[in-house]
């Protein structure tokens, strides 16, 4: 059991939009965290770990020449698993899994830096101040990025709903 493993993985997943890379980034981040642990001065451990994930991600992006990965949530959703671990009925579990997938795809469709800001706020549940420290931007910027991210997200979700069975 590793501290904040899900948070680390989810952040890496949405930053890279690549399931394989996300695993490598998470591993890289924990190894770096372990090596640089003597530099950890206490405080918010999750922020500290996510900042390391971010550094790993930026290094990774530089290495691969700045090309962004294509969003890919297709096929990695296992409805059976969702049914098995849900407390609700199979039908409800399937609907929830489908909605989770739709939301993931929509979030993945956001361009940076709006995607990262939204993920940190909505999925990682960080405060504006924590996001500001992590991304090194002022609070006003975070607010305007969130507004744009949410507007785009709403539009995408409405469009995918109108688009039929996707």
């Amino acid at each position, binding site marked *: *059991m*590793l*501290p*904040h*493993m*899900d*948070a*680390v*993985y*989810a952040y890496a*997943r*949405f930053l890279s939009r690549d399931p394989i890379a996300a*695993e490598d980034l*998470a*591993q890289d981040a*924990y*190894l770096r965290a*372990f*090596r640089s*642990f*003597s530099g*950890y001065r206490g405080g918010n*451990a999750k922020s500290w770990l996510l900042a390391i994930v971010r550094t790993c991600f930026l290094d990774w992006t530089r290495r691969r020449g700045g090309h962004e990965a294509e969003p890919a949530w297709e096929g990695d959703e296992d409805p059976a698993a969702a049914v098995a671990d849900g407390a609700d009925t199979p039908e409800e579990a399937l609907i*929830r*899994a489908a*909605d*989770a997938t739709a*939301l*993931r795809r929509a*979030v993945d469709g956001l361009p940076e830096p709006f995607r990262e800001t939204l*993920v940190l*706020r*909505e*999925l*990682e549940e960080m*405060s*504006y101040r924590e996001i500001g420290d992590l991304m090194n931007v002022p609070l*006003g910027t975070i*607010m*305007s990025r*969130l*507004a744009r991210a*949410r507007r785009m*997200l*709403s539009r995408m*979700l409405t469009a995918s709903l109108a688009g039929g069975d996707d």
Partner: protein
Amino acid sequence: MAACADKEAMLQALIDGELDAANALAMEAHLGACPACAAEHRAWRALRERLGAVDVAPAAPPALRLRIEEALAREAAALPARREGRPARRWRAWAIGGWSAAGMMAATAATFAILFLQPPPSDLGDQLVADHVRSLIPGHLIDVATSDRHVVKPWFNGRIDFAPPVPELADRGFPLAGGRLDVAAGRVVPVLVYRRRLHVINLFILPAAAKAGEARPSGASAPGYALVHWRQGGLDFWAVSDVGKADLDQFRTEFAARAGS
């Protein structure tokens, strides 16, 4: 109807609970007076609720956890001896602290502590227990899987420079499951894998340490694991398992009796 562009950022702060009381009141008042902003506010709230209703953030795959724990164990084992103390121990305390806070302590604690940051093998017994735990990660246990000792024994030929005994013990309740190579005491050593009911016994075999007193006699154990050591025919045998100590002692007796023949 258009929402007020200059209120957009403040509206985010309102739904995110980031406004102080005075600003929150001012925004609420504005929403009461401006239907366009109120509609926008409702839509954003709904979106936020929808995002919170399902697990949009994917959980980390279990295999990834294992992979990272393994990588960290290797990393910890590679730390130079003089540095083994503080960073690893501090990290371990921190990692375990975060996790007990999450209310998930206990059962796996021993495994985790050993696998995760037991700093390096100042002690061979500890190292073998860590190797044992690591071997239980799927795909790591056995290189040559067979219950036939006539397959296991030749498999080691050319891979190591001595010939370990491979007795058959199935009729004594310890069926042979196979063998693999592992690293212990800085060298590649053969490991025989036996089973006891649903448990795994890893038997590490090393050429006897030069100094007689170097290896601990027997019976050392880490929490949840039994470790038995004996010396026979110029070889050191270390059996590690989560079976009871009595079972492991019996294993030693049976193995030693047949290894000589």
